[in-house]
């Protein structure tokens, strides 16, 4: 990148910040297909990557885009694609492939109101459960969700770091409001961003087993075409990568797939708290809805309501411990979402009946307003 003064304040759009975050994290491959409201990411990458001598390609559809990213990632690149609901639905098959073949990649899904074409220019948060359970079969998932332009940058970096560290696809779940809004942000200067690269094999090729892991449960990934001639498949495979149906090989494989994530929950559970110390009423929110909730906390406190907000950055794995902690001792919890209760269901599961948890769902193509939340809380409390 040209020596743009990255440490100067800039007015950036959410999508722009995601692209810049990806580049800061070392993204050197992008394949995508245009779709509102994610196209800006593809456009920016088409401008930036050629100038750096890295590949950018607009593929024939979203299926091809993610396939292209997975191929590039196997060949050693840090690859990203960006899409919205309909394209994300098309990507599910290869997202599953990335999970089972353990290929790091970052998939940005800028949520719009759905299902299907829905409302392309209106925000929605209906893909939260899809990001977790969209593919067939069972596998863990890492899904992060920014609520501001600054967070878009940070979360994009984090997505790449998680993808590389855990050798897995990571979904960045943005939404139309966050994607399109512009905010003043000061980006860290070049070299001030923590960048994690995938662990590569330490043994000579003849001894390399692409799916044999050490205690970390995360196998080391060799770049295709660099002397390590291994096999990658979407079939359940043994340590050498060859298909297997032997129970004594299949079971440990699945166990490892889950363990590599579940053993790192503390690192993966990312939340932000606002005025939680003395709060009596808790709001749990994420994405653009967290912005409404922040305003509600401010306005509510001006009016004497002791409100607090737990903003979820990681949606999956669901940040169980922070949510449990935040729920403890609260008399009431409200979970506002632009869907019919996809995260409130998780909050209720974690809460296990101890605190009153209510969902606040809105599906009219617009954001939840702070006043709307306060009015709801007035009714509930």
């Amino acid at each position, binding site marked *: 990148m040209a020596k743009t003064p990255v440490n100067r304040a800039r007015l950036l759009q959410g999508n722009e910040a995601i692209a810049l975050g990806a580049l800061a994290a070392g993204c050197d491959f992008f394949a995508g297909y245009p779709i509102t409201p994610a196209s800006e990411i593809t456009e920016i990458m088409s*401008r930036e990557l050629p100038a750096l001598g890295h590949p950018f390609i607009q593929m024939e559809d979203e299926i*091809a885009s993610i396939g292209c990213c997975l191929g590039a990632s196997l060949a050693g690149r840090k690859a990203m694609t960006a899409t919205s609901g309909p394209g994300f639905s098309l990507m599910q098959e290869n997202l599953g492939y990335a999970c089972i073949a353990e290929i790091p990649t970052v998939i940005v899904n800028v949520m719009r109101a759905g299902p299907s074409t829905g409302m392309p220019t209106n925000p929605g948060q209906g893909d939260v459960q899809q990001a977790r359970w969209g593919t067939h079969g069972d596998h863990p998932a890492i899904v992060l969700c920014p609520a501001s332009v600054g967070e878009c940058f940070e979360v994009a970096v984090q997505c790449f770091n998680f993808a590389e560290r855990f050798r897995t696809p990571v979904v960045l779940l943005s939404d139309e409001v966050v994607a399109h809004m512009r905010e003043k942000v000061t980006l860290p200067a070049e070299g001030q961003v923590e960048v994690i690269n995938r662990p590569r094999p330490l043994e000579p090729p003849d001894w390399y087993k692409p799916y044999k892991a050490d205690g970390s449960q995360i196998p080391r990934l060799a770049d295709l075409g660099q002397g390590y001639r291994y096999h*990658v498949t979407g079939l359940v495979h043994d340590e050498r990568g060859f298909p297997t149906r032997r129970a004594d090989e299949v079971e440990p494989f699945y166990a490892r797939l889950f363990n590599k994530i579940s053993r790192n929950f503390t690192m993966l559970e990312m939340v932000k708290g606002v005025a939680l110390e003395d709060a009596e009423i808790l709001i749990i929110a994420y994405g653009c809805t967290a912005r409404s909730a922040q305003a509600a906390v401010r306005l509510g406190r001006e009016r004497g309501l002791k409100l607090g907000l737990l903003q979820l950055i990681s949606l999956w794995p669901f940040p169980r411990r922070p949510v449990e902690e935040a729920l403890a001792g609260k008399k009431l919890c409200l979970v506002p979402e632009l869907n019919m209760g996809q995260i409130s269901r998780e909050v209720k599961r974690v809460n296990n009946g101890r605190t009153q948890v209510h969902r606040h769902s809105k599906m009219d193509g617009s954001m939840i307003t702070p006043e709307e939340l306060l009015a709801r809380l007035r009714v509930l409390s």
Partner: protein
Amino acid sequence: MPPVHRSVVYEWLRHDKKFPHVWCPGCGLGVLLGSLVRTLVNSGLDKNRVVLVSGIGCSGRLPVYVDVGSVHTTHGRALTFATGIKLANPDLTVITVMGDGDATAIGGNHLIHAARRNLDLNAIIVNNLNYGMTGGQYSPTTPMGAKATTARYGHIEPSFDISALSATAGAAFVARSTVYHVTQLDKMLSLMLQKRGFSLVEVLSPCHTNFGRQNKLGSQVDMMKTYKRDAVRQERWEKMSQEEREGRFSIGVLVDRDHPTYLDHYAEVCQRAARLREEAKS
């Protein structure tokens, strides 16, 4: 081409992979596998710089037997993965192996766009006229009137001509061969590897287990004999009348043309972008 000693062929097969392979006795995929390995040996390529990519189906199982980097991807998507691999590392020789259903039905869109883009990929399409692995359902290349497990009363859809399709879409090199014409197949694969740009070889291969049995075509030996009977060298084919061509097909190089590949153009784009950056800086 110089004959390749079998012992060299064995060197290119994966020793830690179980042989005999998964395919039915007499399956043409085994013949193709042998031909591909011979060609790779003859090409003088470094094992470490070759990547084999496949989709799903019987053909999808081919790469696992070859001792190169191999990726067995999702159904129809082999070319998309291959595109990513090639773009990520243009020094690699990327070869995709697909079936007819894989490449022209579920992956048909990727095929035409890969051909149009003219990225330097090598595509082998094994055409056995049906979906073999799932039990003999009809595919886009099943001939009109033929029987399939999903066309019990005869197939009613016109079929694709894979080679003509990819030639029209812009492929730089298109050839057709059969697993019976194995020396010619070696030659076509070798030309394919030498060619820059999107190169495709359509390989007719018998599926006696499904297509053959349903259509009473006999064993794979019988089916291969029909290849011997019906195949016409492209040079002769061009001189044949429409009536003479009836019921026959041509083998050989169908298209061989030179136009800049995607990477040639992309290199220019990178230069242009870098130059504009420099100008903006100063």
